[in-house]
C-alpha cells in the first residue's frame, strides 16, 4: 500500500498552491474520467428501460429530460466530457512526444476551450426545459 509516513496534522496541505499545469491536468483528468465512467453506468441503466418496452423508455426519458436539474447536470457532463477529450488529446500528443515544452500551454488551452464550448452549448442544452 502507499508509503507509510506520518507527520501528524502539522503537515502542510498547502501543496496545491504550488501545483503546476501538469499536476492540475492530472487531477482534472482523473476526476473527469471517473465522472464519465460513473455516467456510462447510469446511462446504460437508464437506457435499458427500453428493454421493458417503448412506452416505459419514452416516459422515463421525457420525465428525466423535463427536469431542470437533469439539464444542468447534462451541461456539467458536457464540460466534463469536453475537458476529458481535449486533455486526452493533449495526453496523446505528450505520449507521442509532441510539444512537451508547451504542455502547460496546451493544458490552459484545454481549460479555456472547455469553458467556451460549455457556455456556448448552454442554450442548446437548456432548450425546451421550461
Amino acid at each position: 500500500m502507499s508509503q507509510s509516513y506520518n507527520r501528524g496534522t502539522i503537515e502542510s496541505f498547502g501543496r496545491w498552491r504550488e501545483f503546476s499545469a501538469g499536476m492540475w491536468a492530472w487531477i482534472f483528468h482523473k476526476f473527469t474520467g471517473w465522472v464519465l465512467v460513473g455516467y456510462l453506468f447510469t446511462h446504460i441503466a437508464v437506457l435499458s428501460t427500453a428493454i421493458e418496452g417503448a412506452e416505459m423508455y419514452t416516459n422515463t426519458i421525457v420525465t428525466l429530460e423535463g427536469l431542470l436539474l437533469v439539464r444542468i447536470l447534462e451541461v456539467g457532463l458536457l464540460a466534463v466530457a469536453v475537458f476529458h477529450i481535449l486533455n486526452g488529446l493533449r495526453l496523446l500528443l505528450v505520449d507521442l512526444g509532441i510539444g512537451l515544452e508547451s504542455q502547460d500551454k496546451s493544458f490552459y488551452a484545454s481549460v479555456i476551450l472547455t469553458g467556451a464550448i460549455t457556455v456556448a452549448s448552454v442554450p442548446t442544452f437548456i432548450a425546451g426545459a421550461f
Partner: protein
Amino acid sequence: MSTQPPQQQSEEPAAEQSADAESTPAAQQRREDKKAADREARDKRQAEEAEREAKANEDTREIKVFRYDPEVEAKQEPRFDTFHVPFTKGMTVLDAVIYARDHFDPSLTFRHSCRQAVCGSDAFFVNGQQRLGCKTQISDLEEPIRIEPLPHQDVVKDLVVDMDHFYEEMEAVDPYFDPDETPDGELEEQRQSRANREKVKMSTRCIWCGACFSSCNIAAGDNEYLGPAALNKAYRFAMDDREGDAKTQDRLETIEQEHGVWRCQTQFSCTNVCPKDIPLTEHIQELKREAVKKNLKFW
C-alpha cells in the same frame, strides 16, 4: 530548550529537556558543575548578542522549520519552529537553516555538504515545492518560508528523510554501463559520436537528490514504481550507443515491467522540480515509445 534565544518560538511549548538527568559518573559531575556555572552567563550573553544583532539588522526573514525527533520527548510530536534570520544578499535557504542552527538551535538537523548543487543532499520541501536548499535564493520566496522534509518519505529527524527506498529504486535498473565488449587495446577508446553524447547528456546530470521522486504522486502511491530518477538512469544507458543491442533490450524489459514506465501519468511535476533541469517526462515518454516499438515488432 534553554539554549535557544528568544527569537525562536515554537508553535508548541517546548518541554524541558530530560537528557542529562540520570546517572552521571562522579568525576564528570564535578566537571559539569564547573561548566554549568559559566553556562548561564554565557547563554545570557549570547542571547543578548543575538538579539542586538537582529535589531541592528532589521532586515530579517522568517522561516518556519519542521521539527521532529522520535527520541527526544519534546520533539516527538511534529511541529514547526519559527526563526528570524538576518538577511544578506545572495542568501539561500541552506544558508538560512545553517544560520538558525549555528545561532539559535544546534539540534536543528538537515543534510548538506557541497553548497553548490552537486551533492544532492539538501532537497527540501520549501513553500510547497521540492527545491535544493543551496540553490534557492531566499529573496525569491514569500514569507514566512516553510521548510519541510521531502514529502512521501519517512522522516528520520527534522529535515532528514530516509533515502533508502529511493536508492533501492535507483539501483533496481542496473545503473551501470554494460557494453557487450570493450576495445582490445588498453588505450583504445570506445568511440561515441557527439550527437549521441548530446542525446544522453542531460540524463547524466542527475545528482540523486530525490526531489523528482518526492514530487511524483504515482511514486507516492505505488511503492514499487521505479520513479522518474531511476527511469532517467535507465534512459541514460539505454540511449548510449556504446552499449550493445542485447543489453539495450534488457534495459527496455526492466523499464517496461508493470511498475516501470507505464505507471507514469505525465504529471510533469518531476520535470518541474528537477534542480538539474533534466527533461524527465520527455525521457520517460521516449522510453514508453521505445518499449511499444519493440513490442510491435510483428509488422
